[in-house]
């Protein structure tokens, strides 16, 4: 799943995928802005056929948070 997340991130942000880990902070390490976070969520929703409520999305801090949410839903 981490690889899929990295692949999707590559569409929005110019980053070396090897630097992305589950501990990577979405904003400070990866450099996502608020719209990027929504774009990531929407792509993952389509990929995994899930819904990420807005209240949950705004709480994601790290890649790990995103992956945990997808796995548990």
């Amino acid at each position: 799943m981490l690889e899929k997340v990295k692949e999707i991130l590559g569409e929005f942000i110019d980053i070396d995928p090897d630097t992305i880990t589950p501990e990577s902070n979405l904003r400070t390490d990866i450099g996502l802005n608020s719209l990027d976070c929504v774009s990531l969520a929407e792509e993952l929703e389509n990929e995994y056929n899930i819904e990420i409520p807005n209240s949950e999305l705004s709480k994601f801090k790290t890649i790990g948070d995103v992956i945990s949410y997808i796995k548990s839903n």
Partner: protein
Amino acid sequence: MKKIDSQVYDLIPPQEMIQFMLKYSFFHKQVTQIPESIIVDKKIDFDIMTKALNIVIERNDCMRLRFFKKSGKIKQYFLDKFEVNNIPVLHFSSVDEQMKVLTADAQTPIKVFKDETFRIKFFTTSDNRYGIYLCVHHLVMDNAACLVFFNDLLAIYDHLKDGKPMPKPLGKYEDRIIKELEYISDKSNLEKEEKAYTEYITKNGDPMYLGVEGPKFLEAERKKKKDPTIMAPSLFDPIHDKAEFTKKALPEEEGKKVIEFMDKYGVSGECLIQLAMRLYLSKINGGYLDTYFITLCPRRRTLSEKRSGGTVTAPLPWRLTLKEDTTFMQALEQMAEIQVWAFRHMNYPYLEYRELQRKLFNYPAAAGSSTMMFSWFPLEENTMNNWNYEFVGYGIGRYVMVLYTFAMKDVKHNTIKITYQHRTKFVSVEDIDKFHAGTEKVLKICVENPDLTVKQILEKI
């Protein structure tokens, strides 16, 4: 009419909003242009910069847009080639002179139907720095596109002057135009969004106008029409459009704390600054906790979109309804949720939303309930190709709405700058001075103690 060999396109919804603004600015067409400068420490060879500029024009298709009117509608097409030469180079002996001359240009309408879409000037400052001034029509660029322009220009300059690598190609605005026209041609897209927006704006009843000038206009309108239930005063006035451009900045010590707070809690500038403004607004409007701004969204998702020119920004409704026992931190989370909702629905054309709102709340033609249009400019230290820079905006002297506020990091002084473009018939400089001071106070209190409740915050300010 001259023969056009290129594909002709309709305007896309973000451009239609600009057309709407132009339509209702009877006398002062400069209301839809963006004048700004970057001032840099690095010495600029202006001949090389002119060469760089022409390369940018080749790469950045929005700079080759042309417009004409047909049957009352504006149409657009792209020129294949276009070159600029003899860019004026001005030498200013004082900041006052610089501001006076460039503001005069900012307030001169761009003749967008006579093949003028932007003006550029180079300049030197009284403190031996170098400047690039851009005044561009909003049909051609939004602010994000202006930043793309400056970044690309400096990167190409570095390539020409110092042999640094050429920057990657830019995305095409023409591709975006095609995509947006396809989106709106599918009526099911608009129907889906209309449903979502109807639910969003009616769930808490009619929004009420809260003024940075306090409740005087709403109270006056209620008295005049003998109707105490009016929620949106008529503040649209196409004649009295004189506007001031009031620039403020947080004191550096306070600004530094605000930036540290943003970094520590992962909070966006637009959520934090807006929330502080909304809380102060509630205070001066009888403690009413339901605030409503229109917030500009850059709408650039993919790497290609982020690296393209053009106008794609859209104003989105951000309505926040707070409770007295909500903490500042919780309110920030609510703001973030509203932001997410708005971004998920950012493709619904603003003019459609505006019409929907008027229909749902039965507004008369000139009425509106949004306090302001707000925009956060995402300026960082590396925004201008890693050059040290200062960003300067200029007032256009006239405006179509009561208040447009934009905020950004002042990277030179490590603080937050907030600029208010306001129609002085409704919002005076004194109103802005008080409103800004109140916003600063809220920020100071809440950054120091984000666990304060809304009730506690309103009592302290």
